């Protein structure tokens, strides 16, 4: 469904820059298309920053009302999703700050929970590894979770992630590497156990022979 809408738009607007320009020139059709295509991703990303659905919707609402009211003065972009996600994040963090009357928003939460459909993986070894990965993903620090989400779900490049998270490109790279290595540890441990089990069985067989 989501892809269908994207494709439909691609017929009308060749790229993001053109679509964004149409919106800035007052094309309401372009504006509603931007909303339709991106609101789901915005809601999902926003819901990672706050568990309060009403609050997240308020922030998305404010973001689009502001865009619409100030369309003549908003900057240009050739990556609308990046522009919107970054703006939404600023809005959410600013509002959280107001709500909790705190200046310390650098340790905001990232409510990411791994999921996988157990029915899809019949292979016992893989199933077990998947479970380990799921648990390891859930245990990652908040910022590693955020990078993973932006990288693998939103398909953002490291440069874009750096801007959204307000950290350096190098920090994104290193943190992502660290996160993946953390995850891999969780399954390589399993390999060792599995290997020992197989090895032991082998020995028993050897003795019998």
């Amino acid at each position, binding site marked *: 469904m989501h892809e269908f809408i994207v494709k439909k738009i691609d017929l009308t607007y060749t790229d993001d820059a053109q679509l964004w320009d149409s919106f800035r020139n007052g094309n309401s059709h372009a504006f*509603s298309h931007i*909303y*339709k295509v991106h*609101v*789901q991703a915005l*809601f*999902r990303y926003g*819901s990672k920053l706050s568990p*309060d*659905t*009403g*609050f997240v*919707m*308020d922030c*998305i*609402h*404010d973001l*689009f*009302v502001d865009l*619409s*009211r100030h369309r003549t003065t908003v900057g240009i972009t050739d990556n609308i999703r990046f522009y919107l996600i970054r703006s939404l994040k600023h809005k959410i963090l600013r509002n959280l700050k107001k709500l909790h009357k705190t200046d310390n928003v650098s340790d905001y939460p990232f409510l*990411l*929970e*791994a*999921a*996988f459909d157990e029915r899809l993986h019949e292979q016992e070894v*893989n199933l077990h*590894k*998947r479970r380990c*990965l*799921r648990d390891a*993903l859930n245990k990652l620090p908040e910022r590693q979770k955020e990078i*993973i*989400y932006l*990288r*693998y*779900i939103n398909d953002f*490049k490291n440069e874009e992630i750096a801007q959204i998270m307000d950290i350096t490109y190098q920090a994104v*790279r290193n943190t*992502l*590497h660290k996160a*993946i*290595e953390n*995850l*891999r540890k969780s*399954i*390589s441990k399993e390999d060792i156990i599995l290997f020992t089990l197989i090895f032991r069985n082998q020995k028993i067989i050897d003795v019998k022979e």
Partner: protein
Amino acid sequence: MKEYSTYKCADFASNQAFINWVQHPDPNSDAFWAAVVTSHPGLEKEIEDAKLLVQSMQFEEKEFTKDDAQALWHIITTDTHKKNKTIVRYLYAGVACAASIAVLFGLWQWLGNNSDKQSDALVEFAANTARPVTTGNDIQVVLSDQTNYTIATDHSELKYDEKGQLTVDSQEVTQQQIPTTKKEEIKFNQVIVPWGKRTTISFADGTRMWLNAGSRAIYPVEFTGNKREVYIEGEAFFEVTKDASKPFVVKTGIIEICVTGTSFNVNSYPKDDNLSIALVTGTVEVKQKGKEQITLKPNQAMHIDKKTLAQELLEVDVFDYICWREGLLRFKSETLKNVLRRIERHYAIPVAIKDTLEQYHISGKLDLRNNIAEALDIVAKLAPIRYEITNNEVFIYKSDRL
């Protein structure tokens, strides 16, 4: 292809082309990565793990339906041309939860027609005493000696101690001692909460009862015997102190709710078409004449249709049922009529629906701590209505838009 010889699992898993292949494989990329594995046999394990890692990047997402998106878009476009912004969370909080059909119940008429079948002293007492006076301004406590005590505060607190001594907002209220010779004759107290007020009653056993606007409760001065029985008309929330030897029974005439220790909400206004019981913690047993006894679990609600007496058991977000204690009102697919009834009771002003609007079901959240105009403004966004407020009445009309 030489560039991959130094790659480790983490390098593959964060490589754009690699991620693209795992997430959206096609014959070209399949061939390419197969070739990489063949030319770097030592990397097979690294690539296999990297593939599994990327495949595992799947996360739980909250549901945001097309309807939610449309509703939010509607508010965005209307707000674009206004000075102020709507606070969406009052309109649509909880949209991403499972929908439920909320129905409420009134029992007075039923009780009136069938009171001969009730042999119960408490229910009989209720049937023979006056209905709550909704126009009165103060909370009334009718004591066992028929003396009236009125309370002028909006959210009062009544407390009974072990001897049956009543204090209201920390002030002692004397009531006639029950003569020991007549102890078998149970004496009742009655609390009547008018529109616009709420109250809390603490019983000697520690059980607490919150009464919403336009409700009344009848209960014995002391819980003697092997049951703790309370009669309710309107809406009440209970936190029952555990005592397995002395079950707590809430009666509404049509149903009995039997508990040992639990917290739950009962909604049974005479004017409403439905009754509901929603359970927060513990378990309760619901007994309805001629029906099988049903046990509710936490986050379940039972709705009973007043006309057909049909029961409906639902999985719900119980916060919808109990947030009235905080002056909030949250509803999902609720009839416009029921929402307006609640507004009427809360603001203590009659709301007259002038056009046929019964068919509208609305979802949203109202902060009833604001004034009535603010609450009605929000309702007017959810349903095609307009309203007029006069000195002592509110009129609801169908609006032309939509």
